[in-house]
């Protein structure tokens, strides 16, 4: 069975009288260890799909199974547990906490996984070193460059040792050179066994993955292997 499995998944938002079908019957399987890009124009539903895969939300209809767990009717606590164990997020705008230093930001997921303080610190430092930030442990995000910030975010995503890494336009705020290193890092992690799912509108980035899924109007309209 695949790591992520969606069957007829829909997501419907109500805005006043209007119903917006952000996702409209999506069937999708992502195998463990795959490197998938989801592309599509804005409003195509790729962010919504990403939120479902990232266990930030549940589908309005259809079924969704992540890591063997049926999340079609999951509670907020179930979703939190999934995010804590199985998923690491890398956002376009980094989403670091400005008051915490690198170690503080990286260890954040471990706090909510009830890891004891000492262990937390050790694992956070280890993760920061693995993305090349060993000499920046006590710096705050404001003292780091964009590329460094994104590496902090990747370290944070990795620290819980999740099976799935989700990137929401992870290079969107970076110049192409630093974007390249971040993509390289993600590729490396994928080769090390992580399942990587990227959401992007940049076909060039999508071309770096092994599988590209194209969305339009909430439906999968194309799939290919570059």
């Amino acid at each position, binding site marked *: 069975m695949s790591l992520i499995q969606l069957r007829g998944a829909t997501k419907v938002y109500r805005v006043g009288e209007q119903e917006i079908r952000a996702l409209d019957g999506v069937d999708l399987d992502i195998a463990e260890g795959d490197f998938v890009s989801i592309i599509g124009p804005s409003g195509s539903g790729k962010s919504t799909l990403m*939120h479902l895969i*990232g266990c*930030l*939300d549940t589908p309005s209809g259809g079924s969704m199974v992540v890591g063997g767990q049926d999340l079609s009717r999951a509670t*907020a*606590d179930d979703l*939190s*547990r999934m*995010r*804590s*164990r199985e998923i690491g*997020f890398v*956002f376009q705008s980094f*989403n*670091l*906490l400005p*008051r*915490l230093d690198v170690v503080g930001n990286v260890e*954040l*997921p471990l*706090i*909510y*996984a009830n890891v004891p*303080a000492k262990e937390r610190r050790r694992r956070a430092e280890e993760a920061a070193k693995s993305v090349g930030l060993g000499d920046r442990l006590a710096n705050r995000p404001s003292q780091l460059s964009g590329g460094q910030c994104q590496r902090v975010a990747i370290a*944070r995503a990795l620290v*819980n040792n999740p099976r799935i890494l989700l990137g929401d336009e992870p290079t969107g705020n970076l110049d192409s050179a630093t974007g390249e290193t971040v993509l390289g890092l993600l590729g490396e992690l994928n080769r090390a066994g992580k399942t990587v799912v990227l959401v992007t509108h940049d076909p060039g980035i999508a071309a770096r993955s092994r599988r590209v899924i194209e969305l339009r109007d909430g439906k999968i309209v194309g799939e290919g292997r570059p």
Partner: protein
Amino acid sequence: MALRIGLGEIASHKFRSFLSMLGVVLGVSSLIATMALTRGIEEGMRTFMQQMGGLELVSVVPNEPGGLMFEFANLSPGRTLRDAVALKGAAGLVSHASPELEHPAVVSRGDGGGGERRRARGVFPDHFVIGMHGLEAGRFLTDLDVDRGTRCVVLGSSVASQLFPGTPVADVVGRTVRIGDSPFTVVGVLKLQEREEQARARKAGRKVPTYRWDPFRQKNESVLIPFSTMFHEFRSGDRSENATPALPGAPAKAEGAPNSMESIRLDTLTVRIGDLRHFRAALLQIRAVLDLTHRGVDDYDLETREDWFDRVESSVRAARLSGGLISAISLIVGGIGIMNIMLASISERVREIGIRLAVGARPRDIFRQILVESMLISFIGGMIGIVASLGLIEVLKLISPTENVPVLTLDGILFSVAFAVFAGLVSGIHPALKASRLDPITALRYE
């Protein structure tokens, strides 16, 4: 963990946190100060009551016998010296008994000058214990004085200074005074009894305040002579008010027969209970003894100070309650302040909450964090409030009536801080709920 996050949050917004603490600081300090103040009033009352003669005193007062007993009223000899002797001898819980006879007379110096109408009292040595008298000079009356019926007198402080103005008290001892026409030798002068603020004013050289109702006046105007002397000198001519009823085998006394010292009716009879823990039992003992000496006629009643103490205590309680209520209201206002700031800080921190949710925080983690933060703010505010209350109490000490110096108590402090933390808890619930119900997706998108 939530504790550390909360501390970091408070530390990184020092001014904002301080503002939200301010209400709690004021609330806690005024609550502590109010409790200290009412405690001070209470202590003042207590020392005052102690000076007045404490709870231990029980007065035996005459009382119209009720109901059927009325018929037998004249079976009872009334309050006599026998009561006092029997009480001291048979009621083990009674430590002192002071029977007294009074005689209104002009008290003047030996040469007849300075005469003023006063109430001379014939007493036993126990009187000095029951009246809580201290000696300024000389001695009290002794058992020997009573046995022999000596012509010795102990004067209250204001009597001594009225009769012998300008004379040092030590020299008043040994002088002669006249009670009516009879000369007495002064053997002792009592200590001046006064309220604390009078004593302070006297010490500071200020004008000594006088009061319309001065509870110590009677004590300071004492003219005390031995009980026996009082009887023989002034009261032996009294006719008994009723016949002493015939006892089997004893000839009945005719009505109006002269009194003996044993049969004369006392003007006052006061006893002191040795141990307050056995107050109720002591009252029962006293009743048992008196029922015997009064031949079963309940023509007496026991007056205790309990009712009076109860009244005083209930008024102190009322003062404490109203003061506490006002402070509690200011604490609630402080809590609302915290709630305000927490709500504001949450809308500022929506994105942070979104991030925490995204990395695996459960809604209840967020709830707990906000709650801990608001409790921390109120706790720290409470700590500052304690320090502030110390200053406030110093100020109160300067302006409050000196009798009621505020007393800082540990339970007052603990209660205030506990209440502050409770206010923080309550006012944190709404913001915490709001924060924990944020949708992670919207929170992450929030700019």
